């Protein structure tokens, strides 16, 4: 079975998932991102790398934040950016996902940044482009169902490398709703690929997918046990609709047991960093004291996110 993310030369053709990408490519993206962090500090925040290229932000699921960061990244590379909120547009009129893609291809798109509520939707698009011979169009997954959010995973890795320099001696804990989290899956894939020796996940059994340990992680249900001596704490967002129902009794109880408070964070290593993909639910998964505290690197994550997305788009668009 061919890897749909790579071209015949083993180079990145699409960025669909971090699971199954070679370590060299992950590292190359992080290395490429490094100089881009400086672009933001210049007076003219633009590079001509993607001048004349058309990038379509194809969002089948609402998102302001992720779409904006992709838009900023593309514009800093001088690309033309077209935003399409398909959630409120043509799919409601009976046009299929692939119809939409064909139409945009006819408008000479060079790259699609895709967000979709169903796992695997970007793969379907990538396969369709391959089957119809459009090898010059690239797909970046901006989050698909519960499956993957590769640029988020990459910006998290960039952040960890920035603060910890090296992955090889780290203990990293991912806390919260792993079951529904595409972010967690991308983090797990990246951390294990980059050689982090111990990746832990912490949360209630109702929010842990089956056979999670087979992905190379240690599963903890006790927050205190799981946080002991970790170098990095990665909190996940708990969606409002999951808080009261068969999975969890309430946000308050979740906070009491799995919320990150200063007292629980004290069990981690003193120099541990705290991350969150945003947007945060203060008082549900994280206490404000921690979110605003010295160990939090949540805002730098956002800044690095733009550089990482510039790196991905420049690597794909240059080819």
């Amino acid at each position, binding site marked *: 079975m061919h890897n749909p993310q790579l071209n015949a030369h083993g180079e990145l053709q699409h960025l669909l998932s971090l699971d199954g990408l070679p370590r060299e490519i992950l590292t190359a993206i992080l290395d490429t991102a490094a100089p881009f962090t400086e672009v933001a500090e210049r007076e003219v925040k633009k590079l001509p790398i993607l001048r004349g290229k058309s990038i379509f932000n194809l969002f089948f699921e609402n998102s302001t934040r992720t779409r904006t960061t992709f838009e900023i990244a593309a514009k800093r590379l001088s690309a033309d950016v077209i935003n399409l909120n398909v959630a409120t547009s043509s799919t409601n009129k009976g046009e299929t996902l692939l119809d939409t893609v064909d139409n945009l291809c006819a408008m000479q798109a060079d790259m699609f940044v895709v967000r979709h509520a169903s796992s*695997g939707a970007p793969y379907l698009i990538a396969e369709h482009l391959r089957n119809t011979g459009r090898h010059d169009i690239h797909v970046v997954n901006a989050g698909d169902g519960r499956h993957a959010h590769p640029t988020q995973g990459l910006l998290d890795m960039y952040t960890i490398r920035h603060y910890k320099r090296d992955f090889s001696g780290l203990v990293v804990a991912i806390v919260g709703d792993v079951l529904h989290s595409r972010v967690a899956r991308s983090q797990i894939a990246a951390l294990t690929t980059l050689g982090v020796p111990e990746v832990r996940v912490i949360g209630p059994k109702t929010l842990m997918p089956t056979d999670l340990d087979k992905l190379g992680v240690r599963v903890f249900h006790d927050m205190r046990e799981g946080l002991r001596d970790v170098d990095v704490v990665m909190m996940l967002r708990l969606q409002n609709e999951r808080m009261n129902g068969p999975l969890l009794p309430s946000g308050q109880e979740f906070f009491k047991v799995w919320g990150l408070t200063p007292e629980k964070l004290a069990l981690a290593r003193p120099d541990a960093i705290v991350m969150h993909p945003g947007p945060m639910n203060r008082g549900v998964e994280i206490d404000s004291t921690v979110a605003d505290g010295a160990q939090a690197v949540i805002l730098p994550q956002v800044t690095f996110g733009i550089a990482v997305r510039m790196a991905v788009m420049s690597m794909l668009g240059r080819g």
Partner: protein
Amino acid sequence: MKIHIANGRLIDPAHEIDQQADLFIANGKIVGIGSAPDGFVATRHIDATNKIVCPGLVDLAARLREPGFEYLATLESEMEAAMAGGVTSLAIPPDTDPPLDEPGLVEMLCYRAKKLNRAHVYPVGALTERLEGKRLSEMAELVDAGCVAFSQANHPITDTQVLFCALQYAATFGYRVWLQPIAPRFAREGVAHDGEVATRLGLPGIPTAAETIALFTYIELARLTGAKLHITRLSSAEGLALVRTAKAEGLDITCDVSINHLHLSDMDIGYFNAHCRLNPPLRSQRDRDALQAALAAGDIDALCSNHSPVDDDGKQVPFSEAEAGATGIELLLPLALKWGQGRQLSLLDTLRRVTINPARIIGSKAGQLNLGARADVCIFDAEGETTVSRERLRSQGKNTPFLGLNLPGKVCYTLVEGKVMYAEP
């Protein structure tokens, strides 16, 4: 028409026959095996040298999509597919639109099928009205109309009281109830086996327990009511173990497996291959291995195609939005042969699972070649190959996980009631 099938290797599992023997057919019936009856003058000779001559196959689950889903398939298209696959008897699940819950509908289906004069159809009636699991269907009337059993297809009954009564009522007449083991309202959003693959791909899972919980209930109710059960489309090793135990206990339970579950596992989903969106879901390799062994050991009685044509619109969408189902009727024989080869079974033992065994579950005299039997015959080349491609599939449904494969066996002729309804082009 009098037909002489000459020089073939005759295999009839029902009578343990595997020998070089000619077959003589007149008036739609088998009139001679080995030697012609007195005064027999053939009007047509079929040379079956180096070919296998066996009973037409019997398929326990072929959705022809009529009535209600004619945009997916029609009796005409799917009957052609059945003929090309050497399948001459089809049990039809009741999940049409409207469902097969009314004698008039069943009579119409049987009438349409008879007019086409292809495969024989054996409708499985809806166990409850509209498959809603609330009111019993008119089972005795439906049997008079042609139904051979009753089922809920993929719509499990939520109310255990209703299921209990339905089984009691069916047991009153001795009707067999075919049940798909799905625990109702459990893992409703699931689209793939709940295991490592689904976890990795972020697909909502359907745990094996959805099958075992249903089986615990069905088996206990069978024990209480004395109902005869047929468990359809087993998918897991655990489910299989429960059925095996119930059989050993002496309960009248039979079961089948589909060609998809016999050969594939959740690993075949690969990168979200929507062809592998099936109901029940493809489970682990361990489950698949257990199903293969159990079909050989006889714990699973029959192999079926679970033919469910789905169009491209239903498959060219993200995996979890894809319609469940795959075309399969033309692949039943090749995939039975592939399984038999893998387990080093004789052709006789292999063909038993797609002829006499399913015929007995239906309660039909199909699936055998004795003197006086209906002359439903499949002649195939065991050394030949079937290439699975969209162009070659006759079914209107072109979607199957086996696209692109070369499978063993090639159907040469299909006869229904002594008429050649398919001849290899």
